[in-house]
């Protein structure tokens, strides 16, 4: 347990060091970078370093402690952003659960039937090339319209579905790869026991797949966050961090630090989701024997 704790502390430390490093680089660029932006080989690629385009790190941070608006009953920004992030988090979690259920089911199906894999996999790849922003208004229009057994489709569920749409793909592909990773010797052993397909799947293939599934689930988790945030931006769904980003972005002319508070909130949300998967991994794997058959 001890070395694990030390590793966790080291990782957390490194995370903060890297964040601080980015902040230092940001401020450094503000000092040396061109105030009005610069051209490199004729193309305007050097971003302008003035306070409107790149507010100081401390301005962005101190903005969190200021009220959202200067009206008497306005909440402080950190609270508004946290609230928005938590709203989006719940949608992303629903999307992630949906996406991982579908992803794992598809992977199991594809590993069982070779024809399924041949037939389905290309469609899965194609599905990921459909631009999310084209899909979003369509899916959102189901809100309040589609009724399944008396259950009216709420608007927020559309955002979760788009999150699931981004989440299921890495999970399906990663799990499929994992399910195929069971060593041939073990498979032969299961066969010699006359184990059923189900037994082989749950006693051998899934445990063997876990090292592949964990990174896939992490990708899926951040995918779910992206899907939800894009859906919120694209359709103006109220309450979440995506909506805050578009609203604050339009106020950037006079209050440039404000939009960054929401952007950091979205980034933190992605980290939190991936962290949740990592935590689940640690909790699930702590009793797993270190020795593996190879």
């Amino acid at each position, binding site marked *: 347990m001890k070395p694990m704790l030390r590793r966790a502390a080291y990782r957390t430390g490194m995370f903060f060091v890297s964040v601080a490093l980015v902040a230092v680089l940001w401020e450094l660029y503000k000092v040396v970078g061109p105030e009005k932006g610069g051209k490199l080989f004729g193309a305007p690629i050097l971003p302008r370093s003035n306070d409107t385009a790149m507010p100081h790190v401390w301005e962005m941070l101190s903005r969190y402690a200021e009220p959202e608006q200067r009206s008497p009953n306005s909440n402080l920004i950190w609270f508004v952003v946290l609230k928005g992030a938590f709203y989006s988090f719940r949608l992303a979690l629903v999307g992630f659960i949906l996406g991982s259920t579908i992803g794992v089911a598809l992977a199991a199906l594809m590993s069982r039937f070779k024809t399924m894999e041949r037939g389905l996999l290309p469609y899965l790849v194609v599905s990921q090339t459909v631009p999310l922003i084209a899909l979003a208004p369509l899916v959102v229009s189901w809100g309040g319209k589609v009724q399944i057994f008396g259950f009216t489709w709420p608007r927020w569920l559309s955002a979760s579905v788009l999150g699931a749409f981004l989440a299921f793909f890495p999970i399906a592909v990663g799990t499929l790869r994992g399910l195929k990773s069971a060593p041939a010797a073990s498979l032969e052993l299961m066969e010699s026991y006359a184990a059923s397909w189900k037994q082989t799947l749950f006693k051998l293939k899934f445990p063997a797949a876990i090292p592949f599934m964990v990174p896939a689930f992490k990708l899926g988790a951040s995918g779910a966050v992206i899907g939800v945030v894009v859906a919120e931006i694209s359709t103006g769904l109220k309450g979440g961090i995506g909506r805050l980003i578009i609203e604050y972005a339009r106020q950037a*002319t006079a209050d440039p630090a404000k939009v960054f508070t929401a952007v950091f909130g979205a980034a933190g949300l992605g980290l939190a989701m991936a962290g949740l998967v990592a935590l689940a991994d640690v909790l699930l794997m702590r009793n797993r024997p270190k020795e593996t058959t190879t």
Partner: protein
Amino acid sequence: MRKSGKKLAVASFAALSLIVAACGGSSESEETAEPTACETTTPVSLQLQWVTQAQFAGYFAAQDQGFYADQCLDVTIVEGGVDIVPQTQLADGAVDFALSWVPKALASREAGANIVNIAQIFQRSGTLQVSFADAGITSSADFAGKKIGNWGFGNEFEIFAALTMNGIDPATGVELVQQQFDMAGLLAGDIDAAEAMTYNEYAMVLEAINPDTGELYTPEDFNVVSYEDEGVGMLQDAIWADADKLASDAAYRETAVKFVAASIQGWAFCRDNTEACRDIVVAQGSTLGASHQLWQMNEVNKLIWPAGLGAGVIDATAWDRTVSLAMDTKNLEGSTVLTAAPTDGAYTNDIVEEALTILDGLGVDYTGSAFTPIEVTLNEGGN
């Protein structure tokens, strides 16, 4: 160790949910109207072009003040987003009514969406081209050779119309710059003249600090070219309905009349109660600052009132001008917004005239001939 960790997690989760529970549930609008004798209420949905802001105050006011309820309507106001095209939502049947600018909606109509303009809420165009005073751009004739910002997405037609009017070739005579929906490009000097709505982006520059003085920019720092004044203004926010349903479904038609009547009643309320309407919009959860919203409310009132023919009535002259500009103005690719004149039934005054009759009965002033705008002082960041 592990156990206490779990407890901590549970406790913090509980705390978080408490916070969330405490914040939720306050945004619902309260019914302030007296309960009326409605046998049944008709559910109606309205698609906005953007998120909640004073541009749509009349509808929120009609809901808040119970004008919709008086007409036995249960109205759901659906906010827009980056990729929501209101007239498409309407044509797809996702909503009952939608707000849209006339040229954009006519382009969708030409593409097959069978929709009809039933009330022209904004009688005037609110589009401006804003530049720094020292750039010397006082009319659209001065655009030649300048960097002209535009938003695209169908919001740029008036710019092209002005260029065409002045004989300026959009491809070679000016440098057209794609502009974000903010004014940072103008302030940074990327754009000589930036596209702005009177009720939104123009206020944004007046809410920003002038680095030379350390104080807010003032109107004297800028030149403003108004497309309405230039004579190339196109009709903007109008209520659109499903043309098929309007023709075949008597109940939908009746709903449309009531909806337009109550909406205009809402706008009349906002004309007479500018600050109250600002508060209604702010209570709906807009994140824009209070002085910005009041400015927006006041400017939107100027686009609606006074309404000589009666609010919502489509002025044939303005309509014909919008259509002919949409047909004749060539953009960068040389194509026009409309390839042919709209087929019959692109607009009707039947609905709004019946609606105004209802308002006559209620004693609502729908011309606003005595309307005078208020003075609004903008604060930094619109707060």
